[in-house]
């Protein structure tokens, strides 16, 4: 009986989960490179670039993601910037997570001693070669644990898109629950989130292991 019911609602939960995965995927794949670029900008020699980016990071980290989401979807149309629900969600998430990633990468870049750049310079590597072959691998190793935390947060944060009416996993569970007056959908939603975070945790551990061959 219960199994039958679970089987019945599973497809709608799965399509909700698919939405969650998409938001997760696009945010991660775009915010990480953007975060690296912003973190380099935060260390720029040009002061105005630093100010603007610092302000941006401050704003994004100092206000709730929920507010930013509502602002992008319901607020921006006031000034005739109109997003589809899905695009609004992705846009807000990228904006928010880029700021967090930038801050993490900034810390990572700061941890690389000046001597590494100097020894690369006397070996006549270009700036770009130095970044690519020496600095970025070391920064990545430093930031992987913090990026991992944010990644797990992102899976859970993605449920916030609920507020702009996007059909994600949480919404699918909620609909089934109010329609059928049972708690089972929410339990299933919880299990699916746990599965997703478990997979992410496993992948992150693999990445950390990959970087454990050197110190």
């Amino acid at each position: 009986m219960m199994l039958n019911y679970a089987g019945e609602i599973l497809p709608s939960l799965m399509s909700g989960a698919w939405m969650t995965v998409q938001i997760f995927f696009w945010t991660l794949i775009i915010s990480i490179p953007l975060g690296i670029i912003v973190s380099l900008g935060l260390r720029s020699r040009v002061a105005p670039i630093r100010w603007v980016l610092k302000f941006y990071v401050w704003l994004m980290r100092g206000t709730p993601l929920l507010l930013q989401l509502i602002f992008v979807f319901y607020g921006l149309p006031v000034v005739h910037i109109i997003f589809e629900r899905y695009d609004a969600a992705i846009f807000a998430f990228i904006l928010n997570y880029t700021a967090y990633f930038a801050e993490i990468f900034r810390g990572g870049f700061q941890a690389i001693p000046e001597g590494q750049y100097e020894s690369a310079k006397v070996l006549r590597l270009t700036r770009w070669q130095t970044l690519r072959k020496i600095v970025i691998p070391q920064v990545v190793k430093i930031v992987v644990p913090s990026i991992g935390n944010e990644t797990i947060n992102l899976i859970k944060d993605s449920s916030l898109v609920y507020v702009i009416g996007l059909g994600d996993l949480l919404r699918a569970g909620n609909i089934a629950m109010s329609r059928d007056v049972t708690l089972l959908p929410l339990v299933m939603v919880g299990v699916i989130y746990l599965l997703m975070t478990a997979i992410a945790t496993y992948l992150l551990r693999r990445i950390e292991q990959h970087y454990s061959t050197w110190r």
Partner: protein
Amino acid sequence: MLELKNITKRFDGRTIINNMNLTVPDGQILAIVGPSGAGKTTLLRCMSGLERIDSGEFRLDGQVFDPYENRDNDKVIGVVFQDFQLFPNLTVMENITLSPEMVLKQSKTEAEARAQELIDQLDLTGKETLHPFQLSGGQKQRVAIVRALAMNPKILCYDEPTSALDPDLRETVEKIILSLKASKMTQIVVTHDMSFAENIADQILRVEPIKPS
């Protein structure tokens, strides 16, 4: 032959090196000694292009060159840093071959063959695939020397090559420096250690801190 002509270096208006003149003939070893703060490291950093000089010029084999700007394949000065500054993410072999491949455009095979020669010569055989954290201080230093040599420098500089090592490794460093001299490498060694300087050097330069006037 390396010549320094009227080299002056200031930091924030404070003169660290004042009108220095100096000649280092090919294949010779110059030791730079002097108390802490005298500007030994600063001089080395100017020669290797890490600091810009305020006035004066460097000549290599009679030709003026600016180590701060010069990025040609020729006329290079190699540096072995006090704390070695190996790249922790790369293996010993990769540390050595990175620049020859990326800058001198040697093929991987070519770069590795040359690296292997130097590795064997400096008694690092078997360490090729290790990462720097797996090496002792003396081994790290030898990797740093090999890494610098692999770029075919005309001159090799060391900043305090004995300071980060156990005292009993001092002799090993002396032997390495003297064996490189035997293969005609011009070397400049900054050191606190007077007896070490006397053991290796053809020429000893004493520097003193400049008193603010």
